[in-house]
């Protein structure tokens, strides 16, 4: 369906990357090996980054690849290899049949509700303007400008707080993951499994 706002090429690519994201997500969820799962998740993120760019959020798309796929998922893979969890375990860690059935039903319910919500509060007949709104429409601030503006003006406090949050997270991670010295005895009382 040729849309005057969205050329066919655009739509085709959109659906293509959407499909890649969806399929990758499904495959990700069903992998036994954590390494394989992580890599499939990276695939999802790449697809999503492409979608972001196509939706006009180029900076976010770049951030997605740099931070999410490039840093967070790398940390995941670090931990997997640190703990030597790369091999698929002998026992399948996916829940049994009834668990999967129940989860499937819940998932169906969830997606139904979300779609219902989506329909009710957002008028989907509204046509998206070809050009992004606001500063982006004017094209005066470039790509980063429209994001940097609110970030340092209206949401400055939140921005500063996230930096504090990152500091706390770093400290916390270091403390938690530190190897205990030989003196500190494990005083945890054993619980029956």
């Amino acid at each position: 369906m040729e849309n005057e706002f969205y050329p066919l090429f655009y739509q085709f690519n959109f659906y293509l990357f959407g499909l890649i994201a969806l399929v990758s997500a499904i495959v990700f969820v069903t992998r036994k090996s954590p390494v394989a799962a992580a890599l499939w998740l990276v695939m999802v993120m790449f697809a999503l980054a492409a979608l972001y760019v196509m939706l006009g959020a180029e900076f976010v798309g770049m951030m997605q690849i740099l931070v999410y796929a490039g840093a967070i998922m790398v940390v995941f893979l670090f931990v997997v290899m640190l703990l030597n969890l790369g091999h698929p375990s002998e026992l399948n860690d996916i829940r049994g049949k009834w668990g999967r059935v129940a989860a499937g039903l819940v998932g169906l319910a969830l997606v139904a509700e979300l779609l219902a919500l989506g329909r009710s509060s957002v008028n989907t007949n509204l046509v998206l303007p070809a050009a992004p709104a606001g500063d982006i429409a004017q094209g005066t601030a470039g790509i980063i400008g429209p994001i940097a503006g609110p970030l340092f003006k209206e949401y400055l406090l939140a921005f500063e707080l996230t930096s504090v949050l990152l500091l706390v997270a770093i400290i916390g991670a270091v403390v938690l993951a530190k190897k205990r010295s030989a003196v500190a005895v494990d005083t945890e009382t054993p619980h029956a499994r």
Partner: protein
Amino acid sequence: MLESTHPLADTAARFVWWLPTLPLIGFLINGALSVYASAKLGPADPSSDHGHEAHGHSANAHHQPHAADAGHDGHDTPIRHRFAAIASVVGPGVMVVAFGLALATFFAMRGVEMHSPYVNTLFSWLPVGALQVDAALQLDGLSMVMVLVITGIGMLIHLFSVGYMQDDPGYPRYFAYLNLFVFFMLLLVLGANYVVTFVGWEGVGLCSYLLIGFWFSEQANADAGKKAFIVNRIGDFGFMVAMFMLFAHLGTLDYTTIAAKADQLPAGGIVVTAICLFLFLGCAGKSAQIPLFVWLPDAMAGPTPVSALIHAATMVTAGVFLVARSSMLFSIAPVASLTVALVGAVTALFAATIGLKQWDIKKVLAYSTVSQLGYMFIGVGVGAYTAGVFHLVTHAFFKALLFLGSGSVIYAMHRAYHATHHHGDDAQDMRNMGGLKKYMPATWALMWIATLAIAGVPPFSGFFSKDEILGAAFARAHGSTLADATLLGLPGSTVLYIVWVLGLASALLTAIYMTRMMLYTFHGPNRTGAANTPHLAEAPWIMTGPLVVLGVLSLVGGWLNLPAVITDLMPIGPSGTLEHWLEPVVGEATARVAGTGTHLSASTEEVLIGFAVAIAIAGIVIAKMRLKPEVLVSKSASLPSNGIQRVLEHKWFVDEAYDATLVKPTYAISKSVLWTGIDVGLIDTLLVNGSAALTRFLGWMGGQLQSGRVGTYAWMLVLGALLLLRAFARAS
């Protein structure tokens, strides 16, 4: 009439509430003595080994061996109860005072025209909504007659018991129960409404249970007591339903008010017939008619004076009294009255046939009582309420005499057996008696008076009362509201003729079995055993004295209500005294039943009287000729009977039939359905254990909230989010 303006209000009658109170005081004192003695002095009242009839005289006249009597031989000198002296004074004493008060009230009533009953309201008892029931006592002709019988004969029996029960370890308890019984019986007859009567009704049932099972440590005696109570209870259900219906339709339960309002119910209609039939169900239970008579023979397990008082003179007559009291209802329900008469007649004949073949002297008298009660119900059933009450009074005289006389006989037999340490024989079985005339002449003579009275030989009392009943039945068959009604498809007159014929047949059988009893007991050779006979003797004067009084009453009791037919021929006394006395109470009802044209001619009446006398004498002659006491052997040596004799001896196997059709199915249903199904299955498993399981389940569910398992937490999180989303989706 208001009690304040009643002519009796200023006389001794205002103390009428003392009449039941005196025996109640006696009960309290004697009961306190008994309880104190057993609490303080130890169990001196096992109440089985020392009574005269305690040696296992079960309902089936089996003599159980003295399994528990290891030390029996050691009690040659029986031990009297510690408080026996006090109980001997209190027990009969209150009865003497009560009788005196009853006499005073009677004389007060004689001097007054009693148009309406004198009602003494003690207090308002049940003012509940539309129902007003007072604790009120009513004095009129009928209740006065009953009070005199109860207190008079009760007094005599109390005196007799002083001698009879003198060695019993439960002596004060006995008098306590006996006094309590008199209290309830007086409430029954003095009640001014059905509810007070019902209190007395139930109370005498209770005392009957307590007294029948007096020697309760023998299983058979306890069972007999239970049987009496349970069978009575079935009748009580009928009484209660009748009361409910009375309240539903007439809104009141007072006798006087019901008498006034009785014409509001359609005569002969379904309502009044149902009320009367339910009342009669109660009477059938209390007065041992078919089908609820089975408790009376078993009740002979109690002490003989108890049988004399309760099961001859007073309690069993409560049913007859109730019908007479409810005459205003029965007279407008001809179908119910016909039923009463027919059931009474059938019972009379049925019980008489059984009495022909009983060997236990008390059982003979028990079935005789059932039979004579049937007569009384014939009387009140055909609307001759005075005749029924008349027979009640005369029967009280001679039946009490017969029972007390048999008590003297049994007492003597027991004394003889104890003196010779001869145990294992039944002291009550006639096959072990015989020829006692030689040893107990006074008892012999008095019991013959009673036998002639019950057989209906003139001029003894029973002749007059029986003849009046049969005459009334015959007269009503000729023309009355009853004759015009139909019962089970038969015209009323046919039913009444059947009743009359059955009555005559029972009269014949009565004469036969009573003469048989006298022959086997007092005449012929002695079968007690040569070792025992020297110890047979007359009972002490405290026991024989009341017998003499009752003998005199049995002789002259007929003068209470001489029929006009006879007084016209021979002016031997006033005619119809009792009838005039009861006129204000039952006269209207009697006239209503009689209707029109029921006066038999004098010649017909004379023929009927002659016929009755002939039957009575024929019965005695037949018995004397056919029954040979010489061929009897003692009980231990006698062979079991067979054929019709066996059927009669085993009382037509009625108890066995009831057991098979009613008792066993009830047990089976109770066990399999009610116990296993409902009690264990439904209540225990489902409700009790189920609620516990439910609580445990709820607790388990709560416990899952804190399981520490992340997977569970994740589930709960997602489900909660789903619910929230759903709420949002709905809201928008």
